[in-house]
């Protein structure tokens, strides 16, 4: 363990935060964020992600636990002694200061010589492509420009860690996509550790090196984006990230392999790796693009309830004969007769597409 600490930028140990009134905003959170990593805290609103970020930044004190920054215990350090850059959802630029003064603020607080301040501000503004905007006031900039100034203001102090609280939340979709790219580029360029709070799973998946999916003040899963998507650890993760079909039943080991005994007598063949779970009640998740309609009628029988054309694909909502709902995404193909609502279909699910998920983060046994 000792050899790992050099690579850990921030470590949260058994962090809890309670505002009184029974429910913890964050409970017993353990998290290690590596140096230079783009790390996302992802979850629905009220899951504790912003509270966690605010504790890392020093605006909230944890009720229990320790926060380490590069091996230093900063649990009780005030925000201005933590050396972290912060970007808010609403850019939080100082409206009474020019762009230059906004960006220079952190350097001025560090009492750097004027010449160095000027040089570093110019460099930071160049990095966010806002050279020439120095004399403007935040009110004279567009939303995207304001957010870039906020970013420049945070990176100019060369913080150990950059904390972003839904920084792109207020921008429109298109601007957001280009800012996501810019932010990721900038983070890679600077090599700064970045903690990114978002409720947008797409954003988290495209930008992050690792994601912590949070729910109800707890972490459901910490993993790389593809693992989060393809091997969701819990029912919540499977459901929250993308779309998933969730099926529950008893794991049964038979002569022809392992299968999940669904209600209504349906049988879903499982991967061999799930054989040790035989006898247990399990929930499995399957991504819609891994399911197809079988031509020969083999598979789980059901009928189509709804078909949504998505451009590149069609998403079918199907109801199995036992009443369970399943989502099937078929890529767009030309000249092929496509089934429509009401049609009988059989769902073919390859065993390797089936991922067992835990019902919650505290569930017994690690499904992964």
């Amino acid at each position: 363990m000792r050899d790992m600490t050099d690579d850990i930028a921030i470590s949260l140990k058994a962090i809890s935060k309670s505002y009184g009134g029974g429910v913890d905003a964050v409970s017993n959170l353990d998290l290690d964020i590596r140096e230079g990593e783009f790390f996302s805290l992802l979850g629905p609103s009220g899951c504790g992600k912003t509270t966690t970020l605010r504790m890392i930044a020093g605006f909230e004190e944890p009720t229990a636990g320790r926060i380490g920054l590069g091996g230093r215990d900063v649990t009780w350090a005030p925000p201005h002694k933590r050396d972290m850059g912060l970007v808010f959802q609403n850019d939080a630029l100082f409206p009474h200061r020019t762009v230059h003064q906004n960006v220079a603020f952190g350097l001025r607080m560090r009492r750097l010589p004027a010449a160095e301040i000027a040089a570093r501000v110019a460099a930071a503004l160049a990095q966010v492509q806002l050279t020439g905007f120095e004399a403007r006031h935040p009110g004279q900039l567009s939303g995207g420009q304001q957010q870039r100034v906020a970013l420049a203001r945070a990176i100019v102090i060369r913080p150990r860690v950059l904390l972003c609280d839904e920084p792109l939340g207020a921008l429109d979709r298109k601007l957001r996509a280009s800012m996501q790219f810019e932010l990721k580029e900038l983070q890679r360029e600077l090599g700064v550790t970045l903690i990114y709070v978002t409720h947008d799973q797409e954003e988290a998946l495209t930008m992050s090196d690792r994601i912590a999916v949070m729910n109800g003040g707890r972490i459901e899963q910490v993993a790389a984006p593809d693992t989060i998507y393809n091997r969701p650890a819990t029912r919540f993760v499977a459901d929250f990230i993308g779309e998933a079909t969730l099926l529950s039943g008893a794991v049964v080991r038979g002569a022809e392999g392992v299968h999940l005994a669904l209600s209504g007598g349906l049988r879903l063949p499982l991967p061999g790796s799930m054989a040790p779970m035989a006898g247990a009640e399990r929930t499995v998740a399957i991504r819609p693009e891994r399911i197809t309609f079988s031509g020969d009628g083999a598979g789980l029988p059901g009928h189509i309830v709804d078909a949504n054309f998505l451009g590149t694909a069609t998403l079918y909502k199907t109801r199995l004969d036992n009443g369970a709902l399943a989502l099937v995404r078929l890529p767009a193909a030309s000249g092929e007769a496509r089934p429509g609502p009401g049609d009988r279909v059989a769902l073919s699910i390859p065993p390797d597409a089936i991922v067992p998920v835990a019902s919650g983060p505290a569930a017994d046994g690690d499904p992964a």
Partner: protein
Amino acid sequence: MTTADITLDDTPRGGPRPASSGPRPASSGPRPASSGRRTAWLLLSPALAFFAVLFLMPLAVMLLFSLLTGNPLWDDTVTFTLENYTRMVQDTYYLEAVGSTVLLGLYVTGASLAIAYPLALQLARMRSAAWRSILMIAVLSPMMTGMVIRTFAWMTLLADQGVINRTLTGAGLIAEPLPLMYNTFGIVVAMTHIFVPFMVLTLVGVLGRIDDRLEQAAQSLGATRLRAFVEVTLPLSVPGILAGSLLVFALTISSYVTPTLMGGFAFVNLPILIYQQIASSFNPSFAAALGFALLVLSMSVIAAYWRVLSRVGRGGGT
């Protein structure tokens, strides 16, 4: 004065620079633009009539009186003169009254600001709406009692034989009663008590609109809490400080009842002088001239306020 409307926009509403009034469908369509203008005048007319009859006319009469030697209603030898104004400037007694008027305004404004600002900051940042309401009611409740009654209450507290002095002498802490009343101190105490709610109301409006994440951003950039306040919240609240100060200052320099009751004969300001000239000296012309002096004083403060505010509004403040 709608002080609550002061914002930090680039175009201060009602400021010296006419705000660019946005797209107005003035000359579009066949309807003549004058029709809309006529409606505007019609809508304005009640206010204009009120203003003309109850403000401009009395002012004109006052100006006329201040330039006459006596009251033309019963004296037909009245002539025009500037004597009322020269008297004011030449006699140091009156200049001192102007001085103490301004000084009292500054004292009360300063004291109100010192008390109201921390209170308003706390109120504006209070998370619980219930507690905010309770505190707000507590701040505003003195306004439900008349000014005279509150002044009498202060007299029972601050008089030589009042609660404070009797307690202190009774406890043997002091031999002579402290001079708490019939001086400027007593007036400032009573008037500050009266005007703090005005200041709090004005400040809460402005402070409440300052995003507290701005201070957090400043802190994350290395500023201590105090520094973050000085660099961010304080400059952003300047419009509120100015508006509240203007309000309290204008109300203080024109106040009569409290300075009279709390000051006894030891204190003379312009309103007291004006009253004396009308009620005891029967010299309405000189009273009118003094009134104009007070008006010019107020106007110059308001003019200074707009100048400062438009500078802050343009962001050239710091």
